C-alpha cells in the first residue's frame, strides 16, 4: 500500500510493517499506527512515521549506539501490554529532538520507545524512579567527529 511520509515522500509499505501503538504516544494519543523507516542506508537514525498522519514523524536512534551504558527495567504492565514473551523480540529506540546545530540534539532517555517486533506492538514507556531525563546530549557523536 502507498504511504505518504514526512521525509521520504510517497513510499510503499506492507501491512506487516505497521506497528500498532494501542496507547498512542504522549501528546499524540490518537496516533496508533506507525512504521519504522531508515533515514538512509548509512545513518544510525530511524524515522517513526505515522501511518495516519503524513506530517507526523519522529527521528529516533538506537540509544545504545550513543549511550552504551543505557539500561532500564521494563515494567510488568508494559510486558503484558506489549505481549512480550521473548526478550529477543524487544527493540528499544530513543526519540531525538533535533536542533540546529546538530550537536545540540537531545535524546529522550526517560521515555524509550519499546517495540515488540514479533507482535508488531509498540509503546513509549515512561521510566519511573530513574535518573534519566528527557534531554541528553548526543555528546559521543560529537567526540567521534573530532
Amino acid at each position, binding site marked *: 500500500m502507498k504511504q505518504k511520509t*514526512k*521525509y521520504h515522500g510517497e513510499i510503499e509499505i506492507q501491512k506487516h510493517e505497521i506497528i500498532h501503538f494501542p*496507547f498512542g*504516544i*504522549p*501528546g*499524540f494519543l490518537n496516533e496508533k499506527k506507525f512504521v519504522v523507516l531508515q*533515514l*538512509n542506508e*548509512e*545513518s544510525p*537514525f530511524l524515522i517513526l512515521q505515522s501511518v495516519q498522519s503524513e506530517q*507526523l*514523524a*519522529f*527521528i529516533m536512534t538506537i540509544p545504545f549506539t550513543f549511550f552504551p551504558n543505557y539500561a532500564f527495567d521494563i515494567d*510488568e*504492565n508494559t510486558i*503484558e*501490554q506489549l505481549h512480550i514473551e521473548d526478550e529477543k523480540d524487544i527493540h528499544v529506540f530513543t*526519540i*531525538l*529532538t*533535533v*536542533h*540546529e*546545530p*546538530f550537536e545540540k540534539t537531545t535524546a*529522550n532517555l*526517560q*521515555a524509550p520507545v519499546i517495540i515488540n517486533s514479533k507482535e508488531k506492538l509498540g509503546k*513509549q514507556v*515512561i521510566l*519511573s524512579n530513574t535518573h534519566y531525563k*528527557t*534531554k541528553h546530549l548526543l555528546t559521543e*557523536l560529537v567526540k*567521534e*567527529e573530532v
Partner: protein
Amino acid sequence: MIGDGIEITITAIEGDQVKVGIKAPRHIDIHRKEVYQEIQLENNAASQASLKVLKGIKLNIKNQK
C-alpha cells in the same frame, strides 16, 4: 473508586502531608502529572524537526568519513 477499576486510597497522614495510593488495572499506566507533561512537551518538540534540519544530519554523517 474511579469507575470500576481505579482505586484511590489515603495510605498515611503525617502532619500536613497526605500520602495517596493508587491501584489500577494493568492496562492503565500511572504517572506523575509533571513527568507526563514533560514527555508530552518533548514529543511535541521532537515532532517539529524540519526537512532542512534533517539534511543537516545527513551532512554530519558524511563529515565523519
